[in-house]
Every structure is written in structure tokens, then in C-alpha cells.
């Protein structure tokens, strides 16, 4: 494997890791506040559709992004009402959201665009194009560093950089601010927050809303940056892989980055069986690469690589006790 192939592979890794990272951080906010969210998948899908649809209609991808975030937020609110206000089962609410999004997106797409449940291909300003970082072209021909900067670091869409910036931001918010302290506390022992005179419900809604925004960006990235338009079920299980990454990352922001990059690498390798064959000298089915994130998560959950302890109050509605 030559250097350029490696750069290409890593470039592909970053692109594929971005939606996972955004969704993983989305899940991190929600679950750290004690609200399990298996509806990441559905929210991404809804956001993917609405951002592509609105971008296609208006011709402005930024309006599309906002529409995607709004769609995701609506589903988040639904999850919040069901699981926080009405103390329903968080898993069931999440499953419902996934089904709702899967059916609704195709139905509305067909009704609006009559193209068999997809949106028209996005062109020009209706799509996030890669941005060339300053000096990329100038040093492109410098050996080693040139391709690294021009091919791998430069040339991604703005959403990729936003996702990467979200990691330190999340860490800072969680561990350095009052909001973060309270958010982590409400996921561990909501009674401690309640007796301190802070609203458990308010904090959990805030967390669910942040989750909605991040899922919205993740979905918009799928249809307006990674690809050019919405197709049926285009989230393709990424919401679940993000959940797997969240467990793999033990609910920590920096670990989430490494976990999603690793899972992104598996995704990149899935499309390059030739690279695997060149490296290990053996043919490996691409599907195995696709399954690796899940296999690794099972291994993690079985406790082979340290213990992944979820937030203690996760999944349980808070009921004030006597």
C-alpha cells in the first residue's frame, strides 16, 4: 500500500466518521442526562430528508440544514414528551421514532418530488462543497506533508470541521461548566439535582434538544455533503453504529472521536477490499468490515476491554419519591 492510498483511505475514514461522530455526541448528551435514545437513526433520517428537500426547493443548503435540524428537533421533542413528561419507556419511544421517520420521509418525498421516494440531485449551492483550506494548493506537491494537508486535512465540507470542533466543545461543556456538572448529575442521580432545587425536567429537555440539533446536522451531512440528495433509508444503520460507538467510548467525548474514527475506518475499508488484501494478504468479505463495529461493541459490553458503565439513572423516568 502506497502513501497516497493510505491518505485516500484516511480521507474516506474522516468523511464516513463525521455523521457517526455527530450522532454519537448527540447520544452522549442525551444519555449523560439519563435519557436513552435509540431514535438517533430516525432523527438522522428525517433530517437527511428535510434538509435535502428544502435545499432542493430553495437552492440554499444552509436553509436546508436549518430545516433538517428543525425536523430532528421535532422528533426530539416527541421523545422528550413521551419519556420525560409522561415517563414512558424510552426504548419504545425511540423505536417509534425510527419507524415514523422511515415511513414519513419516503411518503413525503414521493408526494413532493414524484421520483420514487427520493429528492432530486442537489447541485451547486444546494449542496455542501468541500472547502479548500488556505495554502493547500501551494504545498500540495511537497512530499509527505503536501498530500497530508491538501488531501486529508483540507477539502472537506464545513460540517466535517464543525463535527471535529464539537468534540472539545462537548468536553468543555460537560466538564468545565455548571451546565455540564448538572447534566452529568441528572443522568447519575436525578434526586440529587431535584433536592438541590434544580429542575430535572428542564435539564433533560435541554439535553434532548442538544441531541436533536446534533442529529439534525448529522442527517443534513448525509444528504447534502456526503451524497447529493436523499434516498430511501439512507441513514443505513448509522444511528445504531453511533450508539455502539457511544458504548465503545464509555460515554466520553474524546473517546467518542476515536471510536467513530475507528468505525469510520472500517467503513472505508469495506469499500476497498483491495487494500485489505494487500495488507493482510488474504481476501476479506466487505460485510465483515460492516459488522465489525457491532462485534467490537459486544466484546466491550462483555467486559473484555475494561468496563463500560452507563449513566446510572439512564433509561429510568424520574419520579419524585417520598
Amino acid at each position, binding site marked *: 500500500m502506497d502513501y497516497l492510498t493510505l491518505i485516500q483511505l484516511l480521507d474516506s475514514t474522516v468523511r464516513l466518521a463525521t455523521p457517526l461522530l455527530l450522532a454519537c455526541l448527540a447520544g452522549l448528551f442525551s444519555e449523560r442526562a439519563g435519557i436513552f435514545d435509540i431514535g438517533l437513526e430516525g432523527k438522522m433520517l428525517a433530517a437527511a430528508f428535510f434538509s435535502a428537500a428544502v435545499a432542493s426547493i430553495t437552492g440554499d443548503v444552509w436553509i436546508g440544514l436549518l430545516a433538517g435540524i428543525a425536523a430532528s428537533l421535532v422528533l426530539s421533542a416527541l421523545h422528550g414528551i413521551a419519556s420525560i413528561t409522561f415517563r414512558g419507556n424510552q426504548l419504545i419511544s425511540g423505536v417509534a421514532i425510527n419507524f415514523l421517520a422511515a415511513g414519513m420521509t419516503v411518503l413525503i418525498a414521493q408526494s413532493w418530488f414524484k421520483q420514487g421516494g427520493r429528492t432530486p440531485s442537489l447541485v451547486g449551492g444546494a449542496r455542501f462543497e468541500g472547502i479548500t483550506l488556505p495554502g493547500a494548493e501551494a504545498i500540495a506537491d511537497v512530499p509527505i506533508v503536501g498530500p497530508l494537508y491538501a488531501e486529508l486535512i483540507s477539502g472537506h465540507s464545513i460540517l466535517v470541521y464543525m463535527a471535529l470542533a464539537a468534540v472539545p466543545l462537548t468536553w468543555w461543556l460537560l466538564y468545565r461548566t*455548571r451546565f455540564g*456538572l448538572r447534566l452529568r448529575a441528572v443522568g*447519575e442521580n436525578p434526586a*440529587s439535582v431535584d433536592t438541590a432545587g434544580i429542575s430535572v425536567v428542564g435539564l433533560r429537555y435541554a439535553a434532548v434538544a442538544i441531541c436533536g440539533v446534533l442529529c439534525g446536522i448529522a442527517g443534513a451531512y448525509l444528504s447534502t455533503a456526503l451524497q447529493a440528495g436523499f434516498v430511501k433509508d439512507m441513514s443505513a444503520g448509522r444511528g445504531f453504529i453511533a450508539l455502539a460507538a457511544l458504548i465503545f467510548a464509555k460515554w466520553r467525548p474524546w473517546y467518542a472521536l476515536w471510536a467513530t474514527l475507528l468505525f469510520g475506518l472500517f467503513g472505508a475499508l469495506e469499500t476497498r477490499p483491495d487494500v485489505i488484501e494487500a495488507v493482510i494478504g488474504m481476501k476479506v468479505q466487505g460485510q465483515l468490515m460492516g459488522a465489525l463495529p457491532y462485534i467490537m461493541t459486544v466484546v466491550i459490553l462483555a467486559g473484555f476491554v475494561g468496563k463500560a458503565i452507563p449513566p446510572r439513572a439512564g433509561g429510568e423516568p424520574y419520579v419524585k419519591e*417520598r
Partner: protein
Amino acid sequence: MTDDKTLERQATAAPTSAHAIELKGISKAFGPVQANKDISIRVMPGTIHGIIGENGAGKSTLMSILYGFYKADKGEIWINGSKKDIPDSQAAIAAGIGMVFQHFKLVENFTVLENIILGAEDGMMLRPSLAKARRTLVELAADYGLNVDPDALIQDIGVGMQQRVEILKALYRQADILILDEPTGVLTPAEADQLFRILGRLKSEGKTIILITHKLREIMEATDTVSVMRRGEMTATVKTSDTSPAELAELMVGRKVLLQVNKTPSTPGDVVLDVKNLKVIDDKGVERLRGIDLQVRAGEIVGIAGVAGNGQSELLEVLGGYEDGTGEVMLNGQPLDLTGRYSDGQSRRARGVAHVPEDRQREGLIMEYQAWENTAFGYHHDPAYRSGILMNNNAIREDTAEKMERFDVRPPNPKLAAKNFSGGNQQKIVLAREIERNPDLLLIGQPTRGVDIGAIEFIHQQIVALRDQGKAILLVSVELEEILALSDRIAVMFDGRIMGERLPDQTDEKELGLLMAGITDTDAPHDVAEVEANLAHVSGDPHKEV
């Protein structure tokens, strides 16, 4: 029955403005249940006021109203002479009220410092708040003798220390009024003594303290004034120095109660249970029992004293057949399987072992099931309960009705779900099921936890009656008074070991308390030898009357 009117000796009569807390006519109902009925209290600043009452008397409800957890249907709250509206905890904190709950409200994987500032941060950013809290903590430690390691994680420190963090939380929020709800439930006697020293210190610094408890001893030792609650009503408020434990107990239940159990000396027979080097390792690899040696004879109650979590539960579980162990256990001279397919509840029952588990609501009963269904559990193979391959529900119901009659279960309705009985009556249902099977050995854990005083007496009588029938009884309880009152022999457990055995009339709470804290009495080997000699004497001649 005492006439309540004679007890209206109000301990305080100063003008309203002088009171730290004044509650006027507080009433609160949960549906049809009147939890608090027209309750008024006045507490002078700089005093410790006790509130005593049985479980369900409405103590915690009243304090939850004061802390803003519930809104009273009627009544007024006055703090330091001005009327306050306390709709939530934030308002209570602002009014200078702090509360230490029975179950601590701490975040386990946060540090002490993080727990203290949670909800009382100074601004958006954490660092300045943490730094300020660290400085304040040093001052508080100096003022009140409340030393804690600010950087320790809550999950790494003991319950006594955790409680200290709760007190510091309240003080950090500048509470002048501190409410403690059953603070000694989880503490060793030594830790409890330490707590009361801290409370004394807080009092001398001018803090007002409300102590909620059902332990008479604590009221007598720690409080200046005491209010007694019974069934949602305040039956009396008196100066502690003007009253006695007997009077308070009477006020709590509305009649005289035997604090002592009436029993004759035991006449131990053959060894029924013989445990040698019993070990249990839990699924985390922690050794919970580190080699237990214990004998229980026929016609004898052996009490296991200890602070909860020192292996008593595991001892009951392994003997009851639902935890695996290693070692040698003989029952009536025959070995008992500690692992494998003959180590389960069914096999134990077949060998004459009955078990009243510690947590009746989780292990003893299915709360949603009716009393008759619960009565059949474990004994559903009984031919009397069967007709062919089906269960004979009518027979079970009739049998249950009889048992309920004999054990004075109220209401005696076999078709009522277990959750609809009071704690004491639930326990009687479990006891009736196990005792009526005429076991050779009864394992009984926390027989009177969450049980009202009237039922405690009845349950104690049943246990003694079973002993007098020549049965062996292994009793586990965290209530030292209960152990002392019921046992013929006391073994103290600490950290998975038996620290020593004592005879109840030759020991006291102080000595047992030291053993419960893992301190063996090295200063008095003479006494220990004496006790051992006594024990040897008892076991040497089983048929001799002691």
C-alpha cells in the same frame, strides 16, 4: 391508653418571632389517606427538636412539606418570625433550610467538592466555584469539626462520611435549620455517636436541628424538645428532660408496649445447623464470607448482629439455597449441598429449612399477587394444594384464610394483593407460610424491618414460640435491641467473619458495637475467656438446663 390532654405541656411558650421554625395547622392528604392532620410545631433557635413516630406516622411527609417537596393542603410555615411560602426546594434553601435525607442524594461518581457545589454554583464556569467551595470547606471543617477529603469520590467513602458530605452541602448553602431524616439507620453505633457530637457542635454554633427518628434512645440522648406523631397527628410536644422512653413509646403507639420480650431461658438440644469454614465469593470476585463457623441448636435462637453489608445477607442466602458457597454445612448431621442442583430453595425446604428473607417485598412476596398465591409459593407441590396436575385454588385459599386468622393478619382477606397490606401484615403472611410448615431450622432476616410496634411484639412472640417447640432459629437483624431481646446467643459479624459470640445477659450494646465495628476487645482477654468458657459449658452438655 393515655389521655392526650394531660400531655399538652407545650415546651415553648415564647412569642412567635423568637421561633426558628413555626408550623401552623399543616394538613396534607394523599387521596383518601390523611398523612398530616392539623399539625403545629414551634422550634426555638439553637435547639435540637426530635420528631418521633412509627413508620407511616407522617414524619417524613411533614418534613417534605417544610423542604418544599410537597405542598400542604392547609397551614402556614413561619421561619424566623416571617411567613414563608415554600413551593420548591429552591425556596426552602433560600429560607435557610437544609435537609439530610435518609437515602443520600449524592452523585456516586462525583467528588465531594462537586457534590457540594451542585446547584449552588457561583457562575457559568466550574473552576471558580470549586475553588471557593474548597476554601469554604476548610472553614467549615475548622468551625464544626467536619473533616472530609474534598477530592474523594463519593463511591469510595463510607456512609458515615457520605452523611457528613450531606451535612456540609446544607451548611455550604448557609442553612441555619438542618433537618435529618432517620440519620443513624445506616451507621455503626460509633459513627452514630460521632454524628451526635457533630450535631451538638452545630447546636452550640446556633444552628437549629430537627431530628426525625423512630429510635427512642436517640431522642433521649440528643434532643432538647420532642414531638410525637401518630397516624398523621401530633400527639404531644414535650421537653425531653420531662419525659421518659416508656412514655414516648406509649404516645407513639397509643398503648403500653413491651420493650422486653417475654421468654424463658432456652433449653438447647442437639445441634441442628453446624457450619464450618463457610465461604462465599460474589460475582465480582469479592469474598463476602471469609470462613464462618457457627452452630445453632434445637430450641435456641442465635442472633447475628452487625451493620448491614458485612455478610449477613450472604449467610442467609447461602443457607437458604440461592447463593453458592464452599465449606461444610451439616443439617441434623447430614451434609447440605452448597452448590449444584440440590442447592436451591426447593431442596432446602425438603430438608426442613424455612426462610423468611430479609427483603420481604422482593424476595418474600410478589407484591402484585394475592395473599393466597403468595402463601402457596415454594409449597405449591404440597399434595393438599393440588388436585391432579392442577392447583387446587380453593384449598389454598381456605388454608390461607386459616393461617391469616392464626397470625392475626389484618384484613384477613386471602384475595387481597400483597401490596395492599401494611408492612407488618405482609411480614405476618410470610411468617405464617414458613412457620406453619413446621421446619427444623428457621432462617429469619430483619423480621421487623418497617413493621409497626404492635406487629413487632406479635412477630417476636411467634419466633419465641417456635423456639419453645424445640426448633433452631438463626436470626439476622441490624436492630441491636432486637438481637439483644430475642437471642439466646449472639454472634457478631464484621467483614464476612464472626468477630465473636456473646451471651445476651453478659454483654451490652457498647461491647457489641465495638465488635460490629471490627474491634475485638484485646484489653479484656479475661472476659472473653469467661464467655468462651460459658459457651463451652453450654455446648458441652446440650441437655443441661442453663
